[in-house]
């Protein structure tokens, strides 16, 4: 039924036997899965299952006590936040983490901070190199703004935007880094069907046109099952299942722990 030719490559990111705890609380318990280049990989599970923590492990904000992370063939015990960002892992957040005092444009421009090379003295002088750099990146950012259809809120402080737009701006900020892997933490929470479809379209376009690998956390099973190539299920830190949407959907353990009967 898939009308697009999907280019799914080799494993780009592998997580092996990850365990993470805060004090006595075990958040992730021996979780292992891998992600292939160009696929849409979803993580589902009840609240408190450790899904967001998993993303935090992948981008180095949390450091697991056990296990290893292999990213692009390089195996390490933990990621470093800055290195993860620099090597092409970008993300959005469950509770929108935008810079509230800044405009949409400036927020998305921050996403390009790693690509801007002018030093502080050049920026203090501004005219010349810094200005040229600024304008180059502005062009890239404008492309993203067009892509996400948020032209008319370009100069609005994001704190004043409605929730759905904030979600888009956040996606824009992540895209500005031209990531290789994009981590999306509940991008459709609190949206209606129309908005969900818009967001799905963005995700599919990003995946198809830029070949970006996407790791998705989402509660809307309709979206997850339709969009993902493979789904991993977590439950209170343990890994319940891993497989194609159809396999997961029919897995009795998953139905009992998470999906319930209606799905």
């Amino acid at each position, binding site marked *: 039924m898939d009308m697009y030719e999907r280019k799914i490559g080799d494993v780009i990111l592998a997580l092996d036997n990850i365990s993470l705890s805060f004090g006595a609380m075990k958040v992730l318990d021996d979780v292992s899965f891998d992600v292939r280049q160009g696929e849409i990989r979803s993580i589902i599970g009840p609240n408190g299952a450790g899904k*967001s923590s998993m993303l*935090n492990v992948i981008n180095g*904000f949390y450091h697991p006590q056990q296990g290893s992370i292999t990213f692009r063939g390089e195996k390490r015990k933990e990621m470093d936040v800055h290195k993860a960002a620099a090597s092409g892992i970008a993300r959005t*957040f*469950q*509770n929108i*983490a935008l810079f509230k005092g800044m405009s949409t444009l400036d927020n998305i421009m921050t996403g390009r901070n790693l690509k801007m090379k002018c030093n502080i003295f050049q920026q203090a002088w501004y005219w010349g190199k810094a200005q040229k750099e600024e304008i180059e990146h502005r062009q890239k950012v404008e492309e993203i703004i067009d892509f996400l259809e948020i032209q008319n809120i370009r100069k609005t402080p994001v704190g004043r935007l409605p929730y759905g737009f904030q979600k888009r701006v956040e996606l824009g900020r992540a895209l500005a880094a031209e990531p290789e892997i994009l981590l999306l933490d509940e991008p459709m929470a609190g949206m209606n069907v129309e908005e969900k479809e818009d967001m799905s379209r963005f995700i599919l376009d990003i995946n198809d046109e830029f070949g970006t690998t996407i790791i998705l956390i989402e509660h809307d099973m309709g979206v997850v099952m339709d969009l993902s190539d493979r789904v991993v299920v977590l439950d209170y830190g343990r890994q319940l299942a891993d497989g194609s949407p159809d396999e997961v959907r029919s897995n009795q353990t998953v139905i009992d722990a998470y999906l319930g009967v209606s799905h």
Partner: protein
Amino acid sequence: MRIERDIIYIILGFIVLMVVVPWTAGQLSDQVFFNWPFFFEVAIGGLLSGVMYSLIALGFVLIFKASGVFNFSQGAIVLFAALTLVGLHGLGLPMWLAIVATMGVMFLLAVAIERLVLSKLVNQEPIILFMATIGIAYFLDGFGQTLWGSEVKVLNLGISEAPGFYFDGQILINDFDLFAAGIAAVMVVVLGIFFQYTRIGRALRAVADDHQAALSVGIPLKHIWIIVWTVAGLVGLVAGIMWGSKMGVQFALSLIALKALPVLILGGFTSVPGAIIGGLIIGAGEKLAEVFLAPMIGGGIEEWFAYMLALAFLAFRPQGLFGEKIIERV
């Protein structure tokens, strides 16, 4: 109160340092005199003066804990309370009546602050509220002195400063210091119980966490703020009485707040026991440093030593010894 292990390590480390450094200084420098009884005398003197800092820090903690406001005006409140007390006493009221009347004034002050300032700044960022309290501090400093004059006034509690406690024939603590320590202990226990176990105390903590949510469950912010500022005013009155009888009631009382700030960050903004333990640590550290370190590096170090000491502690625990851990989630 749960004491984590690293707090104990930090405090033990500090105690060891506070013994080792003076001893070493005594051995190395011919300007510094060291023997054990003298050391203990200095240390205990320092601990007791630390309690006096704690009295002021407690007022800060109260308001921060209950409303998330860093109340810079606590020093001004101490001064204002002491000035009012002495002023009313000077008008001919007997001391006890003056104290009761001053308590009434502190309540009215709390009402005024709530009406005129806080109620108009609901839901503003912490820094705005902090600035507003600086405004209140300036106002109170000016108001108190306009009302009662700015000359130094004597406040006599009738507690002797005579030595009241001997140890080994050498160390002495006077009655006044013991009295101050007793007062502080009582206040900590009372406030601790108030916060942890009463309905109002719980509501205060809820307000500190989330103003809007507190409103939504029906906690009337207005009353809460009046209560907490009144209590902070009463604590300020106690501090004002103690400090005022020690150094006279004068403008300098307002600046003592600056001495209480390191105590506050060392103990943690939100912890009542933290204010006491912070006070003890700062008091002892400061006195020991003054006696055993200052001669080596040039005097006057009490200006900053407390701050540097607090900073050193923060390096290990950024939220202060007993402060609430910041819950960071994304």
